[in-house]
């Protein structure tokens, strides 16, 4: 076998094993995305109950809560960036980071400094590589978040927010995450989490007007207990949505990698066949040439 032919066969084999890996990753992502979506749905009752309760308290008491009050002289804004721990998910982490950069510019234009809080190794790596500072990073759970991590993140953010910028905390908290719309569409979202706007309040239609609740022990204390939970539930939801999006993005990326590998294998097989054919042709012409040279010599 000629050297060229051997080279093509070798490449084709290497692409074949790559294809096996990408195919396996595609299948794993496909099966896990189903589970991840289920988890998003399972948390919906909790999120709904808590949103309803917060809206009820917020609409029936005009208690000025520190978590809902805008600070006029905001100078530092915390941004939670939710990315993946691992790559091989297409543009998933890159688009979140790009959006975070845009947000930083917007905040800068408003005279606020961005304080990054990172979730996922990709975000941590991005900031570390560029030698930028970040306040805190959480890693190791991006494709399978657990409630404890969500709680820890939410509590850290809350504590920073309550400190305020004078004491090294922040005045605002934004969150950049990827919302899972469908298997083919995932949207990067930027939400301002604190000071709080109970966004879902608009969804409450006329058919369920809130009854006049009695509060135990008091509206202010009820709000005190509810708002931190509401934040946790928002963070938790963002993490779960991001996880589902990550897996969907990975599945898509691996699918196209597998397709590309197939294409490459086809190309290399053709090239190898061509090389073989050329070799045969050459051998024949050498034999014919040799034979006729012998005949001429007689």
């Amino acid at each position: 076998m000629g050297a060229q032919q051997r080279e093509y066969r070798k490449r084709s084999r290497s692409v074949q094993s790559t294809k096996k890996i990408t195919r396996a990753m595609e299948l794993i992502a496909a099966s896990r995305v189903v589970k991840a979506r289920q988890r998003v749905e399972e948390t919906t009752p909790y999120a709904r109950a808590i949103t309803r309760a917060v809206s009820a308290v917020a609409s029936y008491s005009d208690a000025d809560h520190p978590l809902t009050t805008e600070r006029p002289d905001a100078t530092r804004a915390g941004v939670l960036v939710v990315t993946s721990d691992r790559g091989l998910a297409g543009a998933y982490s890159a688009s979140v980071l790009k959006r975070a950069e845009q947000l930083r510019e917007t905040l800068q234009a408003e005279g606020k400094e961005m304080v990054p809080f990172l979730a996922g190794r990709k975000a941590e790596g991005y900031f570390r590589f560029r030698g930028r500072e970040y306040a805190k990073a959480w890693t190791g759970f991006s494709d399978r978040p657990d409630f404890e991590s969500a709680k820890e993140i939410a509590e850290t953010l809350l504590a920073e927010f309550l400190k305020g910028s004078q004491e090294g905390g922040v005045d605002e908290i934004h969150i950049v995450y990827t919302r899972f719309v469908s298997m083919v569409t995932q949207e990067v979202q930027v939400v301002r989490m604190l000071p709080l706007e109970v966004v879902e309040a608009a969804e409450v239609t006329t058919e369920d007007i809130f009854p006049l609740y009695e509060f135990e022990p008091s509206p202010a204390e009820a709000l005190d207990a509810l708002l931190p939970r509401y934040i946790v539930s928002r963070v938790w939801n963002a993490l779960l949505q991001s996880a589902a999006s990550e897996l969907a993005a990975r599945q898509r990326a691996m699918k196209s990698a597998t397709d590309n590998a197939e294409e490459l294998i086809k190309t290399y097989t053709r090239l190898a066949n061509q090389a073989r054919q050329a070799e045969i042709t050459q051998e024949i012409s050498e034999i014919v040439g040799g034979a006729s040279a012998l005949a001429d010599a007689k």
Partner: protein
Amino acid sequence: MSALQVELVAADRKVWQGEASSVSARSIDGDLGILPGHTPLLGVLVTGDVRIVTASGTQTVTIDGGFLSVDHDRVVIVADNVDAAGLTTPAETH
């Protein structure tokens, strides 16, 4: 007398749902009992047991803080973590 529609929700799942004749839970101010026809209420719960009395027996679960809302005989108990070991009937999730 109509029954209460009870939903017990943890952060990551719906733990239990069904009809009950009374619910009691521990709030900041002390034990809180809910019977059908209770006025709309939103209470903050602390760590403790929640007892749901149903036709088939009493369900007891331990929660680690949360809140409870009552309106029109619909009771929603929301907790961060629920220890469902005391549930005698499996959750009927719809």
